């Protein structure tokens, strides 16, 4: 149990109002596009209309002749400085500006710099590019065919294959399948979708010829890592680079990669010696920056007739687009996809993934997801439902029968992960009870008799987050620890800085609550600052639900270091032995004499004014936290839908999310995270897809075609929780940001399929649009 501090202190478990919201709701946030520097000029990217074409020539003369245009940069220009290509986060390389040929529609071809944003946009229209169209590779299933168009001529390997990755025991799994009483399989496509953060990507690059320093205001989820990449790519000494991530309007993985526009702005600023601003339009964001998912998956479960699962095998084709720019820990080309065993026990499992190039935008970012965990959770929760259909067993009963039992944690999965803690049965039983599962099944049976369509979908997902332990996790070689530095000021107020970067998660509040919990300094007296690489300690940033598991842990550990020192100062002030002191958040007191005490504020003042002889003055600490394991949040989501037979429209009647993310810092923020993630999950399940036609034209490249859910589409979310603390985290937290996005798609799809299962429907791919459902209803002769 976590000690509950007073509301005045506002430590863990208090729904402290978000400090950052005061400026956000007043429109006083400071985003990259709010940064305006004297003499600043503007960049505009010229993009390819073709998915695959040879560039015969680029004529920039007309654009350069426009008054106000300062420069037009092409790939050829960058090649002279050896900057036409840049490394991706997955040991591939990516064109900054195209040379030779373009590989996807909207690829960056030239960069126009002008005194004014409008002039830059107009001049970009005047850049004439002579293209020669090439055959286009759109379908990843054809990527490895002989005679398939070769996407990457620059590679030594002359095919479109990027990687093959497998884990588990293929032969042993095969054996189980051969003798299995029952097999159930599903082919499920997790469509290419896009995080579509409210704020698009952009930067202001400011190179000062006077100081030789480059300051980059960047929409970055990982400012420190980006500083290192800029140093490596640009050859600028890292001490001369300062990356500042100001307020960020949502990231969801989209702001992890380095984009060509950033590099172009930096090059332009280095060349012109003035600040250069580049901000994407919405369509540029959707069409060219990191997409997510695009996994063509197959899963098969072997079980006995009683529904005891025996083995799982998974085969996946991953469409990575034109460059392998997925943000992935080095050892894991398919991320943490091998969490696909989910919440269940099997004797054997085997999983293989092949990545291929196509003529599509690069990406494969972890959209509110800890590297392919969403794909994995969706797949397993889908195939379990198919098995339930096969067995004619209730999907809840089948799950309960196969859950990893509570007493088996820490549990080593057949694909190699050590699950930290869990009580899957507990979460599920609470969910079934709260939603009134048995009554809903009765209602469904009655409705079916009347010919009405109603479905109940369950998803009992397990997550794997908080990357990660240095023995397995690095990006470009940099280990995935994270950090915190706390300075307690003489008056007892504190400042803490982290290597992570909030994009709306509420770090300024939650980190302050951790300090409050550990030191008893009121959360309101603790200022949190992130995102400035000149001041914050090094860290790998915020994504993969890693802030609480890594920097949150570092914050607690740093605070404990301060507390250790504070104890020494308290003993000095109280003229007693350290061992005679007891702590309660906010003060040390003498055992048995609680009136003899020193508050943390008294101690802080003494740390600068009256510290023990020989002691180093001040009250500060820093911690770089290397987590011993990942964390495994989980939950059960239940969705109830009604389907209109006339229109195929799916109406979500109820949705209950029972989450277990271990100990909670701020219940209100956790609930907000769950609401947000469920809404994104709803959009993915029913509305969104970045699709391409056969010529490689983007068919989801604007908000006209890529739909965002509004209050109108969003149902009422019901939430509840169980609490199974993480055994290895300093305060037992697991992280929650992604759970709703990871767990919900399967619940939505399972509900729709459940409503139609008596008609012989086993699976429908997302996005489940009314048109798709209506077609199924027509086929089955049900459509009104």
């Amino acid at each position: 149990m976590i000690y509950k501090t007073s509301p005045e202190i506002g430590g863990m478990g208090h729904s402290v109002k978000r400090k950052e919201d005061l400026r956000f709701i007043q429109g006083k946030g400071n985003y990259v596009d709010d940064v305006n520097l004297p003499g600043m000029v503007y960049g505009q990217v010229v993009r390819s209309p073709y998915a695959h074409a040879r560039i015969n020539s680029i004529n920039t003369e007309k654009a350069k002749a426009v008054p106000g245009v300062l420069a037009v940069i092409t790939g050829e220009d960058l090649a002279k400085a050896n900057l036409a290509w840049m490394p991706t986060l997955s040991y591939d390389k990516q064109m900054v500006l195209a040379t030779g040929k373009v590989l996807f529609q909207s690829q960056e071809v030239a960069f126009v710099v002008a005194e004014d944003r409008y002039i830059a946009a107009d001049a970009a229209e005047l850049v004439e590019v002579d293209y020669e169209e090439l055959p286009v590779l759109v379908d990843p299933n054809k990527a490895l065919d002989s005679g398939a168009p070769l996407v990457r001529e620059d590679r030594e390997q002359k095919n479109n294959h990027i990687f093959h990755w497998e884990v588990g025991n293929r032969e042993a799994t095969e054996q189980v399948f051969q003798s299995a009483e029952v097999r159930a399989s599903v082919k499920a496509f997790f469509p290419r979708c896009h995080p579509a953060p409210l704020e698009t990507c952009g930067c202001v690059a400011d190179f000062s010829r006077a100081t030789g320093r480059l300051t980059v205001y960047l929409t970055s989820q990982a400012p420190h890592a980006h500083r290192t990449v800029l140093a490596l790519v640009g050859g600028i000494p890292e001490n001369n680079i300062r990356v500042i991530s100001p307020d960020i309007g949502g990231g969801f993985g989209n702001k992890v990669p380095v984009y060509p526009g950033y590099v172009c702005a930096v090059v332009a600023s280095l060349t012109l010696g003035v600040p250069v601003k580049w901000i994407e339009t919405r369509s540029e964001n959707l069409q060219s920056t990191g997409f997510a998912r695009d996994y063509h998956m197959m899963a098969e479960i072997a079980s006995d007739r009683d529904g005891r699962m025996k083995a799982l095998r998974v085969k996946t084709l991953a469409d990575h687009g034109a460059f392998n720019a997925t943000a992935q820990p080095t050892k894991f080309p398919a991320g943490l996809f091998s969490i696909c065993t989910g919440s269940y026990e099997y004797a054997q499992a085997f999983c293989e993934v092949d990545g291929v190039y196509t003529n599509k935008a690069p990406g494969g970012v972890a959209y509110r997801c800890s590297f392919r965990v969403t794909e994995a959770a969706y797949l397993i929760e889908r195939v379990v439902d198919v098995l339930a259909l096969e067995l004619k067993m209730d999907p809840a009963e089948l799950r309960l029968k196969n859950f990893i039992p509570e007493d088996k944690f820490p549990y080593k999965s057949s694909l190699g992960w050590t699950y930290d803690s869990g009580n899957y049965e507990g979460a599920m039983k609470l969910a079934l009870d709260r939603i009134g599962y048995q009554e809903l099944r009765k209602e469904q049976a009655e409705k079916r008799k009347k010919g009405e369509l109603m479905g109940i979908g369950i998803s009992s997902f397990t997550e794997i987050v908080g990357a990660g332990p240095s023995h397995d996790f690095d990006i470009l070689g940099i280990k995935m620890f994270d950090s915190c530095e706390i300075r307690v000021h003489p008056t007892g107020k504190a400042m803490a800085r982290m290597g992570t970067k909030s994009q709306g998660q509420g770090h300024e509040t939650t980190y302050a609550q951790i300090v409050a919990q550990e030191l008893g300094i009121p959360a309101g007296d603790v200022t949190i600052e992130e995102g400035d690489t000149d001041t914050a300690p090094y860290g790998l940033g915020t994504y993969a639900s890693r802030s609480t598991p890594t920097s949150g842990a570092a914050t607690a550990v740093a605070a404990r270091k301060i507390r250790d020192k504070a104890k020494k100062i308290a003993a000095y002030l109280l003229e007693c032995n350290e061992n005679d002191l007891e702590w309660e958040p906010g003060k040390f007191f003498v055992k048995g004499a609680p009136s003899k005490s020193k508050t943390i504020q008294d101690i802080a003042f003494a740390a600068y004014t009256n510290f023990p002889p020989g002691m180093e003055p001040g009250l500060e600490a820093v911690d770089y936290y290397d987590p011993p394991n990942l964390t495994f949040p989980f939950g059960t989501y239940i969705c109830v839908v009604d389907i209109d037979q006339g229109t195929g429209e799916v109406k979500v009647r109820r949705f209950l999310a029972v989450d277990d993310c271990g100990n909670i810092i701020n219940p209100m923020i956790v609930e907000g995270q769950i609401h947000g993630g469920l809404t994104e999950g709803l959009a993915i399940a029913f509305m969104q897809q970045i699709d391409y036609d056969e010529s490689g034209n983007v068919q989801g490249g604007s908000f006209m075609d890529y739909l965002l859910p509004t209050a109108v589409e969003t149902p009422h979310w019901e939430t509840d929780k169980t609490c199974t603390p993480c055994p290895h985290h300093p305060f037992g937290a697991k992280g929650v940001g992604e759970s709703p996005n990871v767990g919900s798609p399967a619940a939505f799809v399972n509900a729709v399929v459940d409503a139609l299962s008596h008609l012989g429907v086993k699976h429908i791919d997302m996005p489940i649009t009314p048109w798709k459902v209506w077609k199924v209803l027509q086929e089955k002769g049900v459509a009104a």
Partner: protein
Amino acid sequence: MALKIEKTFEVPEPVEKVWAFLSDPRMVATCVPGAQITAQVDEKTYKGAIKVKVGPSITDYTGEVQIVRLDTENHEIEILGKGQDVRGRGSASMKMTGTLRALDNSGTEVRSVSEIGVVGILAQMGSRVITEVSNIMFGEFTKNFQARLKEPSDDPAAPATGADVKPIKATAVAWQATKGLFRGKSESGS
């Protein structure tokens, strides 16, 4: 993006007169909104241009039109047109087969089957919009075709080249396309 559009309409003119018109790309071009023939390359090949403006996006295609097949006996013509936007914003192609059939009332039935391919900015509008835009263009084409046939025949080259041709109207098209979406399911809607 590939679309297939089939249209059939009637004109109150004898089949031979209609054939003389249909088999001459210079004449046909005068009926296509926003299009013009700029030069003749050889007996079967012409250079041409077409401006299409949808919303804020103007595409200005230039390219070639070629008569692939001319079956005078059966009154059937197959035309292949290919063009690139002058500023490299994309390309378009069209294969059109036109067939004439004499009607009992001494009029003629014109049947066209067009396969249209669009790559680039315009194609991003999606098939729902592009199909509607094409439908509207064909509607305009039919009207112009019928009107031009009624005119006394003159030098076919005169109206077809050199004229300052206006692009098809942006807002009107967008609005009609929107109405089209609600009118019913478009052929390739998905």
